[in-house]
């Protein structure tokens, strides 16, 4: 009798085990949908998720966005990322912590490495917008935005000129003030470059003869002016007339 009962149990176990194997075969192809760029949280969600400690949530979310697309052994090209969502992420995170520069630096030095003019422009725009709120504090970010525009976004002379003008009004090293002028000259916008160079050299604070770096820059700027003049009087007259 006992043997018979034991056998029944054994049979049921085997049946359920076989059924479990069938379920597994039916389910093993179902994989979680992997989102490269997760959906950014809303302000209400941030409030609710923070449990009172927004700084901790900020640091957790920063990690999430830093490693977005590179989890569970999967790696993706930046071209596959949704940069519109990323921008919303950046702005949401900047709203949580206004002190930290983590997000703009991550955007400028990590997410800007993308082979897409449109996406590079989005990143440069974000960095420039962020830094423009306090240009004296974030002038390094502004120079980084200049570099992204110059190297990755063709025909961005207007943006470079606007940042160059903003940098001219700050108390910052001379090279940072002159950077936009050099970039514009390389881009071929002679008039804009000339205009910025003339403004840089007018600045009394940076014309210290004792500073080797400043002296070098002044010499370079003067050389640039001479080069520009050599390109023809018509160009200079044209620029002066503008």
């Amino acid at each position: 009798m006992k043997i018979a009962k034991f056998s029944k149990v054994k049979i049921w176990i085997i049946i359920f085990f076989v059924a479990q194997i069938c379920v597994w075969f039916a389910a093993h192809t179902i994989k979680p949908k992997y989102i490269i760029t997760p959906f950014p949280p809303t302000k209400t969600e941030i409030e609710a998720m923070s449990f009172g400690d927004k700084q901790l949530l900020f640091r957790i979310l920063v990690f999430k966005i830093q490693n977005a697309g590179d989890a569970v052994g999967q790696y993706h090209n930046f071209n596959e990322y949704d940069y519109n969502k990323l921008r919303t992420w950046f702005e949401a995170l900047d709203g949580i912590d206004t002190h930290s520069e983590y997000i703009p630096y991550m955007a400028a030095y990590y997410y800007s490495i993308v082979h897409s003019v449109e996406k590079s422009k989005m990143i440069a725009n974000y960095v420039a917008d962020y830094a423009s709120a306090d240009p004296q504090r974030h002038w390094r970010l502004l120079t980084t935005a200049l570099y992204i525009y110059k190297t990755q976004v063709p025909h961005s002379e207007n943006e470079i000129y606007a940042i160059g003008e903003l940098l001219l009004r700050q108390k910052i090293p001379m090279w940072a003030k002159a950077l936009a002028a050099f970039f514009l000259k390389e881009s071929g916008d002679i008039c804009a470059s000339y205009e910025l160079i003339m403004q840089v050299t007018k600045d009394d604070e940076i014309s210290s003869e004792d500073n080797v770096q400043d002296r070098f820059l002044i010499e370079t700027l003067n050389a640039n002016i001479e080069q520009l003049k050599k390109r023809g009087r018509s160009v200079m007259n044209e620029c002066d007339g503008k």
Partner: protein
Amino acid sequence: MNSFVLTGYILKCAKRDKIFFSMLGALIVSFLVSCFIGSTAAYEQSQMQIVYASGIFRIIFVYGFAIFNAFFITKMFQTREIETLLAGPVPRSSLIFSLMLANFVLISLLVLTIAGLLKGVFFDVIPTTHLTIWAGSIVCETMIIVAITALFALMLENATSAMLFTTMFYITSRIMGFIVSSITLKMQGVSIQKVLEFLIMPIAVFFPRLDLFSQSSWLIYGDAIPNLTIIAMQSLVYIPLIFLACVIDFNKKVL
């Protein structure tokens, strides 16, 4: 038997349960894990490490001491240890007071250790005044949770239920700021939610504003700490309130 003798006895029980060294071990391991995770950040690595460490420390303190108290109190009931203690000329309030005092001693020692650890490792980053306030805030937050766990454990005499209620209480207290702001926002409209709001508001009054306590940002930025008076007042009001509730409940118990 005075309260200090009882405190000594509870501290011996804590030593028997290895609570101090278990907590210290957990805190040190979590600190090392935080340092490792923080070091994988692209920028602001020290800030990452400090914030992760402080966040994990808070959870370890709150849950470590909640679990210790929930199990310690229910075990005292189950083993009839409490009856043995109360057989002597000991007022019931002294037992609760001693429990609180013993917890305070343990929490303070551990908080001092981790504050020293944080200051030692991140000497240049963490402002001393802010670290002191953060440490004090952690002590207050943990003491509030210890008191509430003691209340639930005395009321329910069951460790699992006491822990579940403590968890619900802690989560609700931690999102109280969000709840209050949501209520204020919805009050502007006219809807059936108003009924719910009038129900939530009186309940919310009984919860402390733990969302203001122990902010990680205090440790990395040297800004003025907001709501410091509220935090101090909340602790000075809520801990004695729950202590008295424990005393009333314990006095009513038939042992």
